[in-house]
């Protein structure tokens, strides 16, 4: 098993551990770990392929997504005064076990994909990427609080990023940095929207937002 593969799987495992807690701070902590591992995948891909641009992208991901975004969302949750998410239909521990099943499904799907020649980390990378995508989707579906929706979205974004990174021979640096900026802006806007929802409804429970129709 190569280093990019190991880090990618570790990132997927962190996402699965993230989904098992109802505490928003713990979710954010595991999101940060997951992103740190994603940036480690980037750096180790750069080490394998000899592409030095990947180091600076890895560093940018570490600073912007792992530290900046996590700290920003932590600040939002503190401002709003929300600490935990009770979850919707699926109990929180069960959603963690369901996402382990998704990891197995992801492995089966990834082994069907064509391999990139000369790149030995595409199987583990694809497994982790699809698993992150499914875990993020489940996280968005199984949670009530709007902050969780942002975290789930960011997890999915990590999955898409890892897929692009491990299944291709790398994208131009400008494209990667542009995506990073997009993510940052999306999180900022989502944060503002959460403040607005909180002010209008005095809660941020997304399952009750359909009440909007009645007014």
């Amino acid at each position, binding site marked *: 098993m190569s280093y990019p593969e190991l880090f990618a799987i570790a990132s997927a495992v962190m996402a699965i551990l993230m989904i098992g807690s109802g505490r928003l701070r713990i979710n954010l902590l595991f999101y940060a770990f997951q992103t740190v591992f994603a940036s480690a995948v980037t750096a180790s891909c750069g080490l394998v392929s000899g592409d030095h641009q990947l180091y600076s992208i890895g560093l940018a991901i570490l600073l912007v997504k792992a530290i900046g975004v996590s700290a920003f969302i932590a600040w939002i949750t503190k401002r709003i005064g929300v600490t935990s998410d009770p979850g919707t239909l699926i109990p*929180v*521990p069960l959603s*963690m*076990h369901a996402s382990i099943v998704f990891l197995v499904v992801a492995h089966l799907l990834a082994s069907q994909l064509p391999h990139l020649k000369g790149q030995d980390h595409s199987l583990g990378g694809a497994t982790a990427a699809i698993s992150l995508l499914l875990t993020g989707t489940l996280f968005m579906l199984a949670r009530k609080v709007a902050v969780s929706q942002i975290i789930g979205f960011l997890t999915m974004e990590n999955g898409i990023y890892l897929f692009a990174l491990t299944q291709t021979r790398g994208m131009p640096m400008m494209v990667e940095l542009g995506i990073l900026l997009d993510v940052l802006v999306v999180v900022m806007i989502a944060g503002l929207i959460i403040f607005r929802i909180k002010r209008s409804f005095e809660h941020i429970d997304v399952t009750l937002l359909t009440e909007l129709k009645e007014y």
Partner: protein
Amino acid sequence: MNVGEWLLFAAVLLVVPILTAGTIRKIKARLQNRVGPPLLQPLYNVVKLWRKGETVSEDATWIFRGAAVINLAVVLVVAALLPWVSFKPGLTGDDIFLFIYLLASARFFGILAALDTGSPFSAFSSSREATLSLLVEPAIVLSLVALALGAHSTSLGSIFAYGAAAGPAAAPVWIVAGCGLFLSSLVELSRMPVDDPTTHLELTMVHEAMLIENSGPNLALAEIAYTVRLTFLYGLTVQCFLHAVYAVAPVGMTLLAVLSVLGIFLLAAGTALLETVTVKLKWTRCPEFIAYALTMGLFACMAAIFRGGV
């Protein structure tokens, strides 16, 4: 049978449990700015309790008297079977499922004794204990089965034998299984996130309320059994982590022996730290914590399956 090895093992079994329990108490006290009891306080407690008279409930039958002895006997048998230090001499028939059922039977007799006294506190705490053991058993089974898959054997002796170095690829299975076993042993031993071992509020306690009717020699037996259980469960976790180290960099047997005893104390210190910084979980949130132990077990199984291609 190798008499020298057994004598060394027996000496360690006599000394380490007392010191482990003492270490947890001492470090916890120091972290809370207290001087704390001496390191040998568990031993002094047992000696003192042994001399005391006891009060037994009028409703209690021979089950209550017998359970404490049975508990200690079962725990000692497990300690002799389980390779919780690297130098434990091997025994035949040390199957993982025997270990799991012996642990369960010790718990069964504990619950039976608690119910036998007719005290409502012990009754509800035994119901809680039964719930916890029900939840945590799959996690222990999965972690051990993952290790058994790697060794192609269910004998504890051969799973935990230090043979040829398996290579770095084996390390993740050992680490994840070790984490799973550590989390489950916190639940199994009724330690902090699930139950507060120092609480004296009957409504919140689990393990302590089961022992609430015990006094004198009976309580001494229960305390000895608890410290031995603490030691071998921590020892098993330490062995998992040591195997991960061994897979990457093989070390000598003497160093392994020293490390496996030191590791138990290190884990005890870690527990003391954990118990200082965390609070007890609300009872309804305990399953969330135990789910993590189960997840670790599942991860260990997956890693073992992908590695071994079963």
